[in-house]
């Protein structure tokens, strides 16, 4: 009896051990790809361990590719040209235009490195880094906007152009279990390389804004990467028309402070719209720029001033206010930052007043 029992158990155990061994060997040989060489732009060569996706592998090598969804294939930002990586997966195709597919554009988070690859990346991406920083101050600008000041730790300095943004990493907290990234414009000028300022407006049920407004404290460590974006001052002498609302102040503040520091003397009018006085902020700071930048005018407007505001400035929708001041926009260029419909309305208003569409620049990293 015992012999039969032992035989039965022995056979099943033996068989399973054999199958398990087979699987381990298979995994060893099939799932390990060894080192692969990535050749970037035909110049830079990186030797990386194969098997992972391109996005996280490059990130580990210090090369950042824009991504907002952390590699889950749901933002479509990580487009890279991969010359011998094969056809795009079903998960990528909806994000790629036919001409991009023909040019071998792939989503870096969906490309698995199995052999040597040749990549083509835009040069601007080489400047993108990941930064560790510490919170040095959290200041209320309005009832729902906080100004966050971060001091860089590693690397200790950042180089960027006024108007660019960074991606702030929100670590898992409360109910979240994965880090998430959200984009915010740098509101401090580039002359300050050791610290950056961000303006963060609280959004109900917002992942990042709830973390910043309810959980973040002075002294906490913070991770971000950047700089990103093309919303920067174009060289030249054209008069500037800037229109913004709400947290659209941030990149324009950086741009105008930068102008003041560099002594750039271009005529500029900055129209900033808010609902009532409690939504206005940094008015004195922006007004002070009028003495530092010849030809700069700061024009705040309230669309819905309350009687207790005792507001004597401009009233109405910011696009209407700007329209009143700028009957002819044909010689100027415009910088817009705000909600998509503010931008839409502003573009309509400006083109009606003669501004060519290609001279209207707006921050649309939404």
């Amino acid at each position, binding site marked *: 009896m015992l012999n*039969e029992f032992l*035989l*039965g158990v022995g*056979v*099943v155990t033996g*068989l*399973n051990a054999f*199958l*398990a061994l*087979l*699987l381990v060997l*298979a*995994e060893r040989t*099939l*799932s390990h790809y060894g080192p692969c060489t990535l050749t970037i732009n035909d110049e830079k060569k990186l030797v990386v361990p194969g098997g992972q996706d391109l996005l996280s592998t490059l990130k580990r090598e210090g090369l950042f590719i824009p991504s907002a969804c952390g590699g889950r294939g749901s933002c479509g930002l990580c487009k890279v040209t991969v010359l011998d990586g*094969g*056809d795009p*997966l*079903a*998960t990528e195709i909806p994000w790629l235009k036919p001409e991009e597919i023909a040019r071998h554009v792939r989503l870096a988070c969906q490309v*698995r490195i*199995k052999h040597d690859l040749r990549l083509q990346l835009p040069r601007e991406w080489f400047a993108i880094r990941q930064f560790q920083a510490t919170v040095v101050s959290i200041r209320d600008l309005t009832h729902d906007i906080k100004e966050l000041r971060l001091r860089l730790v590693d690397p200790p300095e950042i180089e960027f152009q006024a108007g660019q943004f960074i991606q702030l990493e929100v670590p898992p907290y409360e109910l979240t279990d994965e880090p998430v990234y959200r984009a915010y414009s740098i509101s401090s000028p580039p002359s300050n390389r050791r610290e950056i300022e961000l303006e963060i407006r609280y959004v109900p049920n917002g992942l990042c804004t709830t973390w910043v407004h309810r959980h973040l404290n002075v002294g906490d460590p913070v991770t971000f990467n950047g700089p990103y974006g093309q919303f920067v001052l174009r060289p030249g002498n054209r008069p500037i028309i800037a229109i913004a609302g709400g947290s659209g102040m941030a990149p324009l503040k950086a741009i105008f402070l930068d102008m003041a520091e560099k002594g750039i003397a271009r005529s500029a009018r900055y129209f900033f719209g808010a609902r009532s006085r409690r939504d206005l902020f940094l008015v004195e700071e922006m007004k002070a720029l009028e003495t530092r930048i010849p030809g700069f005018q700061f024009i705040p407007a309230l669309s819905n001033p309350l009687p207790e505001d005792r507001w004597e400035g401009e009233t109405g929708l910011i696009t209407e206010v700007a329209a009143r001041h700028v009957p002819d926009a044909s010689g100027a260029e415009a910088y817009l930052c705000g909600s998509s419909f503010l931008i839409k309305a502003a573009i309509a208003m400006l083109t009606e007043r003669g501004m060519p569409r290609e001279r209207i620049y707006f921050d649309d990293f939404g």
Partner: protein
Amino acid sequence: MNPFTAWFALFFAAVFTQNILLTNYLGMCPFLGASREIKTSFGLGAAVVFVMTFTTPLNWILYHRLLIPLGLEYLGLIVFICLIAAFTQLIELVIERVSDALYASLGIFLPLITVNCAILGASLFMVARSYTFLQTTAYGFGGGLGWMLAILAMAGIRQRIAKNRLPRGLEGAGIALIIAGLMAMAFTGFTGITAPS
């Protein structure tokens, strides 16, 4: 009947008249849950064909060359499950290596196949009907193909009626089972070609 014809007869029976899904009602769960689209059904069906074609003969070898000589036939069920699970895992590794695109579209279905009772059912029938090795190859391949045929037909029909209004309560599983029943009846029209036992 020469062996060639016999093989084909058994193969034909496995696909049509003794269709493991429509006659024995095995493998219903993924059949009902994942048969809304032809594309996904094709992927799932192909994976089932592959696994069933190889695991059934492999299980024959294990049963007749290992278990019977040792008098351990009663361990058949456990041994079959272990082999099916290991085989499925191995196939997943191979596909992952060979083709990312195939893995992305098929991959998620492979782990599901391990629990598809049609696969286990084929091995158990192979034992119950005392098939020879050759007969097992016909039965394994035919059974898988028959399952795939059934799920493709189901997906085609469901895709066709996707926009139609159905009586409330019959949506989803209700209509799927009715379709399955009608298909099963249609397939018995092939009776006349019986499998040699």
